[in-house]
């Protein structure tokens, strides 16, 4: 069978940056899925964009050279923009990495999905039929309604599907999907992967870019491992992942959170640090409706405990975190801190005990004053806590070099920022640390390091942890107890291994299934 995509010696460089891809070879046949894996910055996205002739998109113009470069049977080694444009949309469908921003928010989903058809002069009735068909094939319910909506009105999962619909609407022979599942929670992600699987089975060649090895294992037939713009390993997926030959592949595999933390739950005799009883929080939405973000939540956190909170997006995890640190008041119910009233007190009387609880927010960058250097951020936290330690000592706790002190948060990497946020939280020597999605934005290797750090901290300092995540594997690696949330309620609560192996609530089982099929 002739290859849909055949690339040899692809080299891409940017002025001032240098070569980002060096001599990459790829070959992809219809009805197969080729995965490109690698660490962040390895060049995966550049490679994907090169396939549609847009390597330099969004930055400096790229210099592309290849020994052999054919897409859908056409030699594009020296193609001009006109040639490329004919390929794009028609022969190659593309799903961009930033799924949430990839649909024009000002236009209807229908217009966006049908754009590649319109560009080819397909008439309105025909276009409409095919758009609805593509939306249905992408697994969206009520295609008609969706087509009339705009991206702002869709959830993340829906947007991702709509984007896939727009990529497959003209039934291309090649579909390129760049990280199609990163922004999604486990259940939704599974749906998207299944969709790609069906497309492949229907004969479309799929080029899947991902750093999520679980996803790759499920979907891909072959895999290439990219590192620093070079292919370091390639082959059938079972071979490469089952028996990694290259260090980079091994490191990637090792970083996948796996297994449980073998540690007994803390005994009930340990003193309580936080106790929530009957927490209720209802949000009014403009237009009269309301959501119950929290609907009767009871929870106890004891000293030295690591409690995990899991649940799908919108289940109320972040709301619970805000209640626990008294960033917000519950409508009903109360939170006690170390056996004393907490949530119902006025801020004035809470302030002197604030050092006992710390929140590490979901988006650490936003929580730093952009004008302050890391040193000043820590200094300020230490001063408020009345601590005599130095910023450098805090950095040591989170294994950051002292050179970070003079830098602004914006210039730090994602992992470094997360560490800085944790360091700031530790300034006060809190008795409980609430972490909202501490690793969701990080790449696997960095993720593993942060999780190790948390375990280490808890063991060394005895701080209680409340870790919020939608990723069960993450929780299992760090926590000994877990609470599963669904629609503002805790549907399951107990030691991690117990929940893991004999979940009672149907929702927990669904979540576990989705996650399990990943690994």
């Amino acid at each position, binding site marked *: 069978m002739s290859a849909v995509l055949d690339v040899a010696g692809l080299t891409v460089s940017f002025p001032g940056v240098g070569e980002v891809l060096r001599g990459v070879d790829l070959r992809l046949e219809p009805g197969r899925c080729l995965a490109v894996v690698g660490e962040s910055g390895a060049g995966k996205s550049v490679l994907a964009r090169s396939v549609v002739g847009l390597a330099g998109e969004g930055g400096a113009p790229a210099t592309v050279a290849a020994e052999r470069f054919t897409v859908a049977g056409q030699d594009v080694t020296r193609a001009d923009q006109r040639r490329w444009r004919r390929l794009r949309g028609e022969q190659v469908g593309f799903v961009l990495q930033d799924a949430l921003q990839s649909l024009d928010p000002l236009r209807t989903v229908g217009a966006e999905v049908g754009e590649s058809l319109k560009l080819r002069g397909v008439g309105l009735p025909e276009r409409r039929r095919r758009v609805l068909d593509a939306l249905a094939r992408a697994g969206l319910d009520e295609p008609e309604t969706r087509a009339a909506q705009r991206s702002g009105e869709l959830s993340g999962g829906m947007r991702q599907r709509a984007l896939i619909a727009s990529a497959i609407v003209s039934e291309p022979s090649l579909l390129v999907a760049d990280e199609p599942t990163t922004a999604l929670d486990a259940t939704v992600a599974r749906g998207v992967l299944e969709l790609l699987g069906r497309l492949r089975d229907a004969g479309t060649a799929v080029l899947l870019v991902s750093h999520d090895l679980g996803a790759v294992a499920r979907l891909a037939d072959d895999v290439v491992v990219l590192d620093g713009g070079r292919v370091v390993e390639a082959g059938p997926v079972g071979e490469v992942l089952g028996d990694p030959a290259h260090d980079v592949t091994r490191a990637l595999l090792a970083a996948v959170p796996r297994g449980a933390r073998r540690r007994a739950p803390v005994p009930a005799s340990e003193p309580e640090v936080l106790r929530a009883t009957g927490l209720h929080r209802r949000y009014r939405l403009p237009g009269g409706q309301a959501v119950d973000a929290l609907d009767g939540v009871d929870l106890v956190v004891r000293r030295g405990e690591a409690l995990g909170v899991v649940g799908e997006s919108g289940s109320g995890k972040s709301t619970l975190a805000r209640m626990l*640190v008294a*960033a917000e008041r519950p409508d009903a119910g109360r939170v006690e801190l170390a056996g004393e009233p907490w949530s119902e007190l006025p801020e004035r009387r809470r*302030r*002197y005990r*604030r*050092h006992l609880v*710390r*929140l590490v*927010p979901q*988006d650490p960058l*936003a*929580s*730093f*004053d*952009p*004008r302050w250097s890391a040193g000043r951020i820590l200094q*300020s*936290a230490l001063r*408020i*806590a009345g601590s005599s330690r130095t910023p450098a000592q805090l950095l040591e706790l989170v294994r950051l070099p002292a050179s970070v002190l003079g830098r*602004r948060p*914006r210039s730090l990497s994602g992992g470094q920022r997360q560490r800085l946020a944790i360091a*700031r939280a530790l*300034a*006060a020597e809190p008795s409980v640390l609430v972490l909202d999605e501490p690793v969701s934005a990080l790449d696997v290797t960095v993720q593993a390091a942060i999780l190790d750090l948390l375990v280490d901290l808890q063991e060394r300092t005895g701080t209680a942890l409340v870790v919020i995540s939608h990723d069960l594997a993450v929780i299992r690696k760090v926590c000994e107890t877990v609470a599963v949330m669904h629609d503002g309620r805790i549907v399951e609560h107990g030691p991690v291994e117990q929940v893991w192996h004999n979940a009672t609530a149907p929702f927990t089982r669904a979540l576990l299934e989705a996650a399990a099929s990943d690994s």
Partner: protein
Amino acid sequence: MTPDLALNRRRRDAVREATTRWARTLGPGGAVSAAVVVLVLLAALWPTLLAPGDPTAVAPAQAYTPPGPGAVLGTDASGRDVYTRVVHGAGQSLGVGAAATAIGLSLGVVLGFGAALGPRRLDAVLSRVVEVLFALPSLVLALLLVAVLGAGVGPSVLAVGLATAPGYARILRARAQAVAQGPYVQAARLEGMSAPVAFVRHVLPNTLWPLVAVATLGIGQAIVWVSALSYLGLGALPPSPEWGAMLNAGRLHITTAWWLTVAPGLAITVTAAALTFLGRRLGTVAPA
């Protein structure tokens, strides 16, 4: 090498690094703008350094001398040296811009912060006030003020200041609200920082810094507005070499003595453009 020398070198390196960092963030356009602004500032603060003559000394016999040796930018209808006047006018024109902007800003700060951080009722009232102020075009406001206070730089400055205040207030209100309710202020409050301290440490600097950019932009605008008042005969008092007044006086001789309009006209546009450009650069450099 002695430690002393090493220290010096380190200091010198630090300076060089700082300047190159600035140069990089400003870009070539920004650097040129900055140079222009520095030059104009110099003219404003120390005019005699650049033009030792008397800007008001008349010499009717030398009237309408075209640019050339003796009079670099020519002379005006009264034989006054245009170059000297342009240089000496910098102080007033720049001062006018700065003063008007200062008035607009301080009023904007009061209105904006009041609306953003005060009680909800106050916000409603102040927002309305701002809306109404906005509804009065600046020149209309200026006309009224000049009618009350008489012509002159003072009333013009006040008028332009008042007219620009609602703009600043709006920007400030939006920003102050965003910052005050934003994640890093919340993070600080959750650490136990008190509200006033958080205001001083976080809200104030993060709200005002982006305003620096807006304000430099505003100075340029204010200079232009005050010059428009001069056109209506309501601006600077004679014989002040305010650029707008010079431009207006020269306007009538546009076909016979072009240099009378070109010199102050360029002074206004180049200064205002440099300030605007710098403002925009600062705006992009300022952390959001």
